């Protein structure tokens, strides 16, 4: 019987460099007292921020 393997696809550069964290960590770093990202006053962020 043939072995069935799940193919692991390589990720693009942007995904390799993306900062991984839990949602809780993200909110701790960006949220105000109500755990809301303040720098944009809500997601989504600017379309083309640097």
């Amino acid at each position, binding site marked *: 019987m043939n072995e069935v393997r799940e193919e692991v696809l390589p990720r693009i550069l942007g995904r390799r460099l*993306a*900062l*991984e964290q839990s949602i809780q960590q993200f909110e701790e770093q960006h949220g105000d007292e109500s755990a809301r990202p303040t720098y944009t006053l*809500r997601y989504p962020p600017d379309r*083309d921020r640097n």
Partner: protein
Amino acid sequence: MRLLIATFAGDVHALEVALVLRDRGHEVVQWYGSDFPTLQSASVELDGRSASWSAHGPELALDGREFDVVWYRRSAHPVLPARMHPGDRPVAQRECEDFLACLWALVSPGAYWVNPPASRARAELKLVQLREAQRAGLEVPRTLSSNDPARIRAFLAQAGGPVVYKAFYPAWWSDGDRVAHLLTSEVDAAALPEDEVLRLTPGIFQPRIEKAHELRVTVLGTRVVTARIVSQAHTATRLDWRRRTKELALEPDELPPEVERRVHELMRRLGLVFGCLDFIVTPDGRHVFLEVNPMGQFLWVEHSHPEIRLLGPFCDFLLARGGPVGDECADVRHADWFERADAAAAALARDHVRWEGEFTSSDASTPSGRPGAEAKPEGVSP
């Protein structure tokens, strides 16, 4: 005055401005783009030599009457319902997008537009921004944008120092309770994927520029509001201040007159009347242009530093319609309006189709498709 705002559910900026302007006696209509097509009906009719258009839906009853000002804030994309044949979805989505583009092109041609849609579409192209900034006399980083693995590897090897990678678009992957957020990132040859994968996504590569601090420059017509971002005080924010914004400090600042003149020249070249620009200021005082956001977020600046006023100036900028700016909203402060706007945003989110934006991808092994495509408001079954 009669104003139209293109917006989406949860858009605090649009709500706050609308609340202020209504309080001043102006008529403001908010057009929630994602309500189309499930909650909104719109029509364009041409007959003989005449043409008419209309749009109706929650909080929307437009009959083609002209507006004085159109704030083309964020129009949001049409959102199709979850229950739809998957083979029809891309066709219907394209048809919706094209129809709405036609409609917006016919809405209030005589109004003062912030920003004109054609200018905005061009100005959102990062490489066009950088090219026009060069032409306007602004310093821009040496830049390679490419999907050519050989060019990318050579750029990294020849840079003579650290190189950063930037995407054209914000990206955000989610998988359960974990997220991956793509920001400006340092990159070296070891981080690059194999060439067959590297070529699949063109990127922007620039030498890492040493910073004294950064500037967020908001242009409202002839007025320029500059905030210094104290990004070098914390290790986490030195490369990209968005990595940790909670304690990020902002201070009032000003552009040197020559840089400000060139900023206005850039805006003129791009056909923009409003924009949020980002600069690096180097330790030796050079101002390096990074980008302009044709409809960037701006109230967070006043939120962070109440004396860097933007809500009142923005409202007066809209009301001026490109002419002399008055002081009708000079006493308006974001702090007095934010809670009301935020509460209204939460309440209105229940009545409108939610748009998650095109920033988010699933990181799960089985892709679930566009997140926004399955969105719908609570209690509404389109």
